Each structure stands twice: as C-alpha cells, then as structure tokens.
C-alpha cells in the first residue's frame, strides 16, 4: 500500500532584540547563569509585563516576509501550566489573535516549485533553561523572557525534503530580516514536527506523532524519514499509530518515545489582564514593510539579471547572507561581477574552510578584493600574482596597491620598455638567436626566462612573448 505523508511544522525563533519580550533585562547568549535576569524574568510575584516594541517590529518584519495578513490589534493571552522552567506559572503568548495569519512561502525541491501555506505567526516569551543532573536540577533564568516568534504551517508538507527546504528558507528569512541568528544547534531556532501518514486517496488524517528536540535541519529530514517508515511498518502490520511525543536520537538515527499524549494539559488560555489590547499604527506597519531588507529570492534575481551571474553561483552566494553581503559591498568598487563572484566562491571559501573562520572575521575587506580584481583586469598584475596578493591581503589586511608596491609586483606592460629589455637580453645571448634560427623552440623559453630574471618577473608575459618573437624574426 502506498501512503501519503502529512507534515506540519512548528518553528520557534528567538529574536535578537536588545531587551526581553516583557522585561527590561538584556537579551544575551552564553553569559554566566542567572546574571541577566531581573524580578520579572524570575516571576517574582507582583511584577508586570511591558511589551517590547522592537519585538513587535521584528514579528511584523517576518509576517511581511511570509506574505501574512497582519492583525493590527495586538492581543496577548496567558497559557497556564506548571513547569519548573516557567517562572510565572504561565507563558504570555497570543492564542486567539496571532499577529500574523495565512502566509505563504515558495520552495523548490528537485526542481519542482511548491507553495507552503503558513497558518499563523505569534509572539511569546521563552522559558528558563533547565540543567538536569543525577540528583538535582539547576535552572538558568537568563533565557527566561527572551522574545520568541512561533510559526506554524498548515499540514501541507509532504516529505522530509520539503520540510528541509522550508526550514532552510525560513532560516534565511530570519537572517535576511535580521531578527535572529537562527542557530538550530544553539536553540535560537527550534523545530517541532507533526507527522502522520494515510493511504493515498484518503481524506482523513491519520494519527500524528510529534517529534521534538531536533537540533539541525538535516536531522529534521532524517527524523521525518525514519518516522514515516516507522508508521508505515506499523500500519502494514495491521497496527495502530499512537498519538505521542517522540524525540530524535542522533546515535540510533531513530525517533524514540518521550511521552504519550494521554495526559494532555489544558492550558486554559485567557486574555492577559495586564496588557490591554494595543492598536498598531497602520503607517508604522507599512513603514516596516517598506524598510524590509531585500529577501534571498530578490537577491538571486538581481544577481542573475543585473550582474549576469549563473543562477547556481547566485544561489550559493545568497545561501549565506554574510557572503552575499560581502559580495554586494565588493561590487560597489568594480564592474567585474563574475570575477569577484569567482574569487569569493573559490579562493575565499577555500580560505574560510581551511582556516575554519567566517567571512566577518577575515582581514581582507570587500573593497580590497574588488580592487585586486580590477588590477588583474587592467593587467597591472597577472593572475598568478593576484593569488599572492590575495594571500597577503588575508594575512595582513593591507590593500592591493600597497602590497603590489611593497613586493614590486607591478607588471611591465609598456611595449617600448619591454622591447628595450628584449633587445638587451638578445644582445647578450647570440647563441640563443642562433638556436632559434635553427628551429630549436626551447630557445624561446630560455630567453623568456632571462627577461623575467632581469625584470624580477614583472614583465607582462603576453607582451613579452609577442615582442620577443618579433625581434627574433627581425634579426
């Protein structure tokens, strides 16, 4: 029997605002535990929430990027449950009236385009972080109250590959809209997956399982693929899929049971009484859309149409926003769009991999890369010299002009100047002229070598060759 796979994704993303969603304490990562908290984050009785306007702005940005309808009347609810990482005993979230609804995102899988429908986007706050030990649990409240947005798709994802494509693109939207660093391995982007299968043609959904604790996009795909085959086996053996929460075990490469859903909690959502409904200024919402940075797709389009880059190159550049930003900065100083792209995707990427560093950390600034490319094109330096200049720029951060100057790398491209040197060399090597006349081509190589020796390798090889042959023939 063939089964259709039904997948819905819930993605949480931590926003990199200055302060927390409902308190004035700072949003930080990797600080000493419980040093970035105040009485609000600790759920001290009597404290009250104050909504972070930048948090709302970030949510609006992502809503726009996902083509969502925006509810300009902000309303917040309490989600009530007891858990030791939840200091207030409730989480402030948006249950009934999420800020964003009915979004779409186009993805491409194996050359086929598909539109993923997005149900909702809402704002909420993060919980504290628990560290479990054998006989005790420690709680770090630094994370408590960090702004979150949650984005929920409709169940119209059909494969692990589609899920991965959606997540890749969503991640790049978070990066391009500058709302988050969206690192799944560090938990600033988190994904829960709902998976069910049903026989093709059926219009009823099968029982779904939820997979949590996925720390990379590739694991999301693997977990889905495992889970689908697990559910298929159960159904084919005449069994029943149980509604349960599972997690992906990286070692086993399997999903394993966390808890069954029998004891589902009633969250008793109700309106947060300390935040009265807030009417957003319509113009403010529009202004955010206006100021939205260019999205990845627009950027690829620009690279292909305006700079005539091959689509594949454009995609690779855009895949990492920082690389793409670097490229955009570099091409402000040159018209050699393709060459800069080549240097970035070739030598630069290789350098980053080899040195295990990132584009933000390197010493060579975009302007210098562009200037170096210009030097190659106007034949100030040869391609071979360019490689040396590149290495020195990475090493020292100096600009190409200085490096060329300091290393005497400026090419001699003047025909007259080269002719003078060629003549000098020929005068000193009558035997080589003789050899040439006798048909020994090796002589040319020897003479070029002599010329390069005299010029310290700075003679333009093309011109040198041309002039040398001319002079040899005339003698």
């Amino acid at each position, binding site marked *: 029997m063939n089964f259709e796979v039904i997948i819905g994704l819930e993605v949480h993303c931590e926003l990199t605002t200055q302060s927390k969603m409902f308190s004035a304490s700072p949003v930080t990562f990797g600080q000493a535990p419980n040093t970035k908290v105040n*009485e609000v984050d600790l759920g001290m*009785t009597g404290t009250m929430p104050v909504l972070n306007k930048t948090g709302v702005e970030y949510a609006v940005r992502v809503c726009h990027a996902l083509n969502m309808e925006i509810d300009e009347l902000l309303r917040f609810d*309490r989600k009530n449950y*007891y858990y030791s990482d939840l200091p207030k005993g409730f989480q402030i979230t948006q249950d009934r009236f999420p800020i964003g609804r009915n979004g779409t995102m186009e993805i491409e899988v194996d050359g086929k385009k598909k539109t993923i429908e997005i149900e909702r986007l809402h704002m909420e706050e993060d919980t504290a972080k628990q560290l479990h030990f054998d006989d005790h649990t420690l709680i770090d409240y630094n994370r408590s109250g960090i702004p979150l947005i949650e984005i929920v798709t409709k169940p119209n994802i059909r494969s692990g590959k589609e899920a991965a494509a959606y997540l890749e693109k969503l991640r790049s939207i978070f990066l391009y809209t500058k709302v988050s660093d969206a690192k799944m391995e560090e938990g600033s982007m988190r994904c829960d997956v709902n998976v069910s299968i049903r026989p093709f043609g059926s219009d009823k959904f099968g029982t779904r399982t939820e997979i949590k604790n996925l720390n990379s996009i590739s694991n999301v795909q693997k977990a889905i693929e495992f889970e689908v085959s697990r559910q298929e086996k159960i159904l084919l053996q005449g069994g029943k899929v149980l509604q349960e929460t599972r997690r992906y075990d990286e070692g086993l490469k399997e999903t394993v049971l966390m808890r069954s859903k029998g004891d589902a909690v009633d969250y008793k959502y109700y309106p947060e009484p300390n935040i009265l409904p807030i009417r957003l200024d319509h113009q403010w919402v529009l202004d955010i859309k206006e100021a939205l940075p260019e999205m990845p797709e627009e950027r690829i389009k620009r690279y292909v149409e305006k700079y005539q880059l091959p689509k594949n190159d454009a995609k690779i550049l855009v895949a990492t926003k920082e690389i793409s930003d670097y490229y955009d900065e570099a091409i402000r100083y040159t018209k050699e769009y393709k060459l800069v792209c080549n240097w970035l995707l070739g030598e630069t990427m290789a350098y980053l991999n080899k040195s295990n560093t990132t584009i933000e950390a390197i010493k060579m600034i975009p302007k210098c890369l562009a200037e170096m490319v210009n030097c190659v094109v106007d034949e100030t330096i040869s391609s071979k010299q360019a490689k040396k200049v590149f290495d020195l720029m990475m090493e020292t951060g100096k600009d190409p002009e200085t490096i060329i100057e300091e290393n005497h790398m400026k090419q001699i491209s003047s025909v007259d100047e080269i002719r003078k040197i060629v003549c000098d060399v020929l005068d000193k090597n009558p035997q080589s002229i003789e050899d040439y006349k006798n048909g020994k081509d090796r002589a040319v190589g020897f003479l070029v070598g002599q010329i390069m020796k005299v010029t310290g390798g700075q003679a333009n090889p093309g011109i040198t060759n041309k002039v040398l042959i001319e002079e040899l023939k005339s003698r």
Partner: protein
Amino acid sequence: MYGLTITQLHDMLKNKEIDIKTYYEQLFSDTNEVQQRLNAFVTITKEEALAKLDHFQFDENNWLSGIPFVAKDNYSTKGIKTTASSRMLEHYVPIYNAHVIDKLAKKDCIMIGKSSMDELAMGGTNKSALTGPVGNPYDATRIAGGSSGGSAAIVGSGLVPFALGSDTGDSIRKPAGYCGVIGFKPTWGRISRYGVIPYASSLDHVGAFTRSVEDMAIVIEAMSGRDERDMTSSNRPVEAYYDHLTSDIQDKKIAVIQNIYDQISNSEIKENFDHIIDLYKKMGCTVDFVEYDETLLKAMLPTYTIIANSEATSNHACLDGVKYGTRVDAATPDEVMIASRTNGFGAHIKRRFILGNLALATQNQEKMFRKAQRVRRLIVEELNKIYENYDVILGPTAGHVAAKIEEEETDRLTDEYLILENHLVLGNFAGTPSLTLPCGFVDEMPIGINIMGKLFEEQTVLNAAYALEKELGLKNKYAKGEA
C-alpha cells in the same frame, strides 16, 4: 503621640515643636502597644526606619517629609519580608520595591511596618491571616474587616496618619468603614500596581487609609502617576488634589441606587444615611434615587467570584516554591511544586484556585469565565447610564457594623448580602474612584458612607468627602483603646 494627621505632624516638625527622633522613639513604643492590642502588624521595621532618620532632613515644602506610614503586606519591599499573610511567603524577602513604595521613599515617607491582611488579599474579615485575626480598634473582639484589615486598624488606632491598602472587591473600603477611617481607591490605572502582590489584575486597585480628607488628597497625589513598568498605568498628568480641595460642592448631582438603599435593614444605619442625604441637599446638591437593574445587582457576586478567582489562580501560579517562597523538598521538580503549594496555602485559598481553574477550563470557559466578562460589561454599562446624569453615587459602606471575630460567616445567598454587602465591587468592575468616609457610630462602632465618582474624577470624589467631613465633624477620629 496618637492621632496626628499628616498636616498636623508636618506643622509640628516645621515649627520644631517636636524632634523627629523623639517622635519616632515614642511611635515605636506606641506601635508595640497597638500590636499587643490589635495584632495588626506582620513586621515592624523599626531598624530600617531609624536608619533612615540618621540622614533625614526635613523639607517644609513637602507635606510627606518624615511622615510615618504602614504598608499592607502585599506591597513588595526590597530586603524586607513580604508575606501577604500566607504560609507560602512566610519568609519571602523581595529583591525589588513596589513602585508606590519607591515613590513614597522619594517623598521621604518612612515605613514603620507591614500590616496583616487576609491571605493573598482573599477575604473580607482578616481572619485568614497567617498571623491570626486583627482586632478592630474600637472593639478588639470584633473584626477589622479585610482584606486590608491591618492597615485599616492601625490608622483607626491613631498610630500613623496613613497606611497603604489594596482593593479587589472592597478590600480598602469595607475595613475603612468598620474601623472608622477614610479608605480610597482611585481609578484603575491612576496608581501603578507594579510590585503589589496581585489578587485579580483586572479588578485590583491600590489605595490608602487616612483620618482626614486633606491627608488623603496629599497621599493619593504622591502615589499617582504613570509607571513605565505598569502598562495599564495612565499617562494622564496627576492633578493637585490637595490644592484643589474645596467644600463648595453646590449643584453637584448625587445618585443613590434605590435597590441598594432598600436592602438596608439596620434602622440606625438607614437613619444615618438619610441624614447624610439631607446634609448634601443643604449644601446645594441634588440627590436623586435611581433604579439599577436588579438582576445585574444580584449577578455582581457570582460575576466577581468567577473573574477574580480565575485571574487569581494564574496570578498565583508563580508561587510554586521553586524560585522563592516556602519550599517543601521532594524527589522531582513537579513534586516540589505540588508539595509546596499543598503546604503553602490555606484551605479557602485552594478552594478559590479550584473554582478559578474550573471557570477557565476549556470546556467551561465560554459559559463561565467569558460569560462573567460579558456580564461585567453589562454591569458597567448600567452604571455608566447613571454617570450620564450624575457626578457621584452615594451608598452605605456596609449593612452592619463590624462582626465579632468569633461570629460565623453570614448567609451568602440573601438579597441583603448579594446586593448591599457587595455593591462596592461596582467600583472594581468599572475601575471608578471610590471612597469610604466615616459617617457616624452605631452601637459605639463606626459606620461609613461610600462616594463613587467617574473615571479619573478623583477630585470630585475628594471634594464631596471633604464637604461632608466638615459637616459631620468626624475628622481625625480614632480609637486608642484602654492604656
């Protein structure tokens, strides 16, 4: 040194008739006396208060300079135990101050202690306090009322000129009436609630007790104003209530709700109330009796019960023994929370939490909590109809004087209880300013009258009280008790 008002004490300090250190020494000795008689304090902050006196400088342009006060024990006080009279918070020491505490400290007020209350402000008798019942200053065998019973009793004893309270149903105004003092809760949003341990956020008001309307104007003015930490606090500029006090209230229009008036069964209270109506008429006010939908009046208590307990159950979900508060150790974090909450709350609190959870449960929420919210809106709309034609609404604070501490609770299903004893909650549903003023004595126990105004018209309410206070001659009454 009992019975000094803010203005009197200020003038004495200004004219150097009294040395502030001598005054505070006497004050703390009197405090012990009051505590022995009334059991109204949870904590006496003598050390902290005297430390403040060390670098105190009197400012004659600030009415509140050096004035002592008491805060209800649900105002968070940094470094000072804040128990809300609950076992759960018996040893809890906050790391921050409530906004109002900060404001009063900036005004150089000096807090001398934290007062007893019904556990977590849930109750009307102060009998549920962890430290036991509070005695009424006029008869220590009677209740002070609740939930701000300690504050009301302390001001009623004449010890300090003012005290802070909080009011979710009538928790300032009822005890004020029983203890013969002024109790005022201004408009919801006029004073920041930040740092006051909540009961039900949409109904919670902060306010104060004093023995003169002048003092009340001074105190409320100091407490009011926008606080960036409370999004529900108003941006409206604070008015100069004290400067604008006037007893000229001619042509003000006063409404008395007939259905509430009709429930007064105590003839002396009724007589007193009629007398007050006459006084207002003599002052040039019109006083009319108006009808209020009786079904809605009877719906007040159930509506209140559902909304207040629903909000309370999540407001107090933070009290789980994990971060602060009385923790009972157990094997897992879940078990710690269960054990701590089981141990930490009184039976009546648990009953209210269960009720609140029932009303919020998904399968009940529409027909209980959401319905109560809709009924609340109807109740407020009916009230607003009265305000279309009247400046203030006048009513009795209670149908009887303070009950004996030993007395059983009254039957909660009589019309008198449902309507007369609970009508002050109208001011919480609507968020309107509401003030109780002592207006006489029945069986040697004080009774009060309630004046409720329109949103943000604190001044109108204060002036109506100011005018009546002059006529009644009950300003700065207090009951020091037998020495």
